[in-house]
């Protein structure tokens, strides 16, 4: 990626991260659509021999052999038995029955996590710069589990099974499905086994935001990653014939539009279909569209496909307007024709003009790449939101990372839009999603792991979470793109990742596999259900009072069963810094909840563990049903922060 290293402070802090063996010994496994091995992001220049712990291999298949791997891309496997059993044999004229990535998504995520440094990267000149993954020296193992028809659980489980055996250190999974209970969710079950082997699992939170309770991958042993924006934009302005101007975004590069304004038409008035405004395939009337710029609205079909539909109907350009579902969030696309995306408010104003002017006209001006956009980060509207639909006491997402307009490596088997009609080929593409934020965290976790190889996956996650930030440098709270208002822990979890701070978190909330088994006992799982997850006999102690509030999680999901009462959460902090004394402080946005911490001061020797209890007392339910707060431990230098969500 070309901007995120700077945005995350990695450019100034190269001295803080190990440059040699320990960082290059870390292996990031990526379960995705495979890999385009010829991408410069997988160049292995300067890397030493493959780590001796590595047990993986590069599998041979369609247009892919072991010689496609090197000291950067050290593993590449594919898993298609489940896919073929469901949908029939793979058509190798359409997709490679091999680790080769025909889609681009897997190359993008792998290169984001751990791609090598590539100078002069850009998409048609947009986002130009030096591209690199988060952990440039880490090794990559690609496990292809997603195909044209989707990603099937039997293949995903097979890939996790193999990745554990291969000895990856971090598993990155930018996929999800539904919200079934932990013991029925293959990603959750496979991740549990991986976690037991010391593998950190980073998963995307999902793109079902801003609807509440829209999260995927919420198991407490998974790091769940939401998405935020960067301080970069790709403006493309809309100038209407009535003199009004609106700001949009675009990654279009190609034949320019004439300097003079062009006729403008609302798609809904250029179609006989009831949903003509959506510019679905075959719905636009060429005679009403030809030679004009068309206003289409977001929804149902892919944004880039709407552009292709306008182009096929003879349109010269497109203005793509958000609806209430997307608000003001702008996602840039490499459209096949001159096009720009505008927010809901601008879209409404443009429509008003189109409905009232007899001969509407428009101009689109493409401005290229702009950096330094503030405020940033802003929580992406599409980023899935809490509360956790399975266990509300586990606050998810865990944190957010860059996931909007991210440039990273791409497959040359497909154009940047992914459309069949897109014959353009690029080495880098700019796309958005929690799929993009997840590998950022995977790579950053690899960096932390390389600096602290002895840390458990929970300790690494705790470091990333407790050092995440929730306010801009000017002190204002992080914003939510969906509302334009301050975001909450249901949107950003612990906050935006700060990898430099995560290297020295001071204290961590550690967890063992046994702790998670106690959590499953607290959920009243049957012995069989626990065994399905844990793969061994585990009997909950009938004499022990298990509680989900005692899971040593770095955040607090407080749930009051009635409007009044008290809820206790117990936590244990491990000092991973020098001896120090930490003091607790807490803030809450609800006067209805009192929070007390016992003890309020903890003095640690090096490596020492200390426990504390937080009691939340409610004197009445908030009219919103939720409230939020933050608990911090600080020794005056290091702040160990935990978000609090309170629900009635």
């Amino acid at each position: 990626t070309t901007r995120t290293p700077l945005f995350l402070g990695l450019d100034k802090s190269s001295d803080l991260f190990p440059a040699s063996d320990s960082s290059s010994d870390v292996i990031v496994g990526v379960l995705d659509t495979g890999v385009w091995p010829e991408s410069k992001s997988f160049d292995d220049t300067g890397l030493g021999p493959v780590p001796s712990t590595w047990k993986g291999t590069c599998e041979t298949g369609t247009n892919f052999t072991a010689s496609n791997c090197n000291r950067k891309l050290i593993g590449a496997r594919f898993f298609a038995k489940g896919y073929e059993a469901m949908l029939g044999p793979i058509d190798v004229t359409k997709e490679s029955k091999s680790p080769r990535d025909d889609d681009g998504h897997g190359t993008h995520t792998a290169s984001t996590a751990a791609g090598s440094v590539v100078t002069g990267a850009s998409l048609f000149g947009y986002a130009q710069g030096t591209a690199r993954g988060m952990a440039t020296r880490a090794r990559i193992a690609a496990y292809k589990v997603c195909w044209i028809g989707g990603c099937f659980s039997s293949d995903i489980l097979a890939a996790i099974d193999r990745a554990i055996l291969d000895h990856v250190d971090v598993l990155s999974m930018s996929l999800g499905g539904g919200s079934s209970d932990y013991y029925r969710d293959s990603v959750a079950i496979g991740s549990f086994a991986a976690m037991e082997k010391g593998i950190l699992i980073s998963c995307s939170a999902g793109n079902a935001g801003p609807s509440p309770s829209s999260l995927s991958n919420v198991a407490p042993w998974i790091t769940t990653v939401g998405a935020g924006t960067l301080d970069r934009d790709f403006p493309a302005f809309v100038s209407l014939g009535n003199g009004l101007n609106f700001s949009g975004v675009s990654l279009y590069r190609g034949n320019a539009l004439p300097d003079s304004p062009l006729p403008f038409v609302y798609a809904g008035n250029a179609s006989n279909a009831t949903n003509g405004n959506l510019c679905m395939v075959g719905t636009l009337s060429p005679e009403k569209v030809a030679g004009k710029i068309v206003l289409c609205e977001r929804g149902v079909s892919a944004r880039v496909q709407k552009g292709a539909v306008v182009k096929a109907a003879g349109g010269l350009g497109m203005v793509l307007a958000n609806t209430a579902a997307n608000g003001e969030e702008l996602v840039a696309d490499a459209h096949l024709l001159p096009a720009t995306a505008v927010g809901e408010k601008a879209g409404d104003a443009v429509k008003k003009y189109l409905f009232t002017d007899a001969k509407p006209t428009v101009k689109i001006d493409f401005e290229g790449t702009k950096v330094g956009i503030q405020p940033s980060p802003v929580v992406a509207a599409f980023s899935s939101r809490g509360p956790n639909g399975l266990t509300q006491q586990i606050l998810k997402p865990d944190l957010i990372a860059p996931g909007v307009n991210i440039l990273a490596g791409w497959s040359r088997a497909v154009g940047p839009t992914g459309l069949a009609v897109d014959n353009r080929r690029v080495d880098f593409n700019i796309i958005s999603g929690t799929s993009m934020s997840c590998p950022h965290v995977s790579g950053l976790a690899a960096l932390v792991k390389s600096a602290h190889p002895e840390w458990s996956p929970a300790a690494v996650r705790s470091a990333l979470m407790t050092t995440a930030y929730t306010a801009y440098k000017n002190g204002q709270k992080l914003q939510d793109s969906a509302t334009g208002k301050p975001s909450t822990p249901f949107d950003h979890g612990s906050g935006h990742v700060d990898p430099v701070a995560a290297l020295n978190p001071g204290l961590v909330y550690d967890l063992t596999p046994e702790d998670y088994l106690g959590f499953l006992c607290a959920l009243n799982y049957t012995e069989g259900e626990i065994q399905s997850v844990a793969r061994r006999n585990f009997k909950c102690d009938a004499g022990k009072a298990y509680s989900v509030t005692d899971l040593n999680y770095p955040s607090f999901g407080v749930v009051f069963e009635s409007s009044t009462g008290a809820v206790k959460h117990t936590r244990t902090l491990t000092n991973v810094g020098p001896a120090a004394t930490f003091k607790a402080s807490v803030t809450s946005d609800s006067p209805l909840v009192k929070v007390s911490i016992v003890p309020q001061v903890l003095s640690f020797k090096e490596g020492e563990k200390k426990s504390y209890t937080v009691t939340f007392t409610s004197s009445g339910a908030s009219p919103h049903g939720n409230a939020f707060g933050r608990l911090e431990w600080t020794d005056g230098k290091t702040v160990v922060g935990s978000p609090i969500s309170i629900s009635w």
Partner: protein
Amino acid sequence: SANKKTTYIVHVAKSQMPESFEHHAEWYASSLKSVSESAEMLYTYENAIHGYSTRLTEEEARLLEAQDGVLAVLPETKYELH
């Protein structure tokens, strides 16, 4: 539709393998054959779970789930890229 097969993931309690079997793979195969003559294993899992995936009818899946040592027989799920 009763004969329609779909993929299932079979979770097994490895510790409950009868002594008559030397290797769990033999046990899995025997157990599977007892409910379906034609079913074949897609994958055998060693690390992520204990068990295997296979194609079964709904009835076969129900019969398999009732067997000793079988913890769960879960239908294949489709996941999507984010």
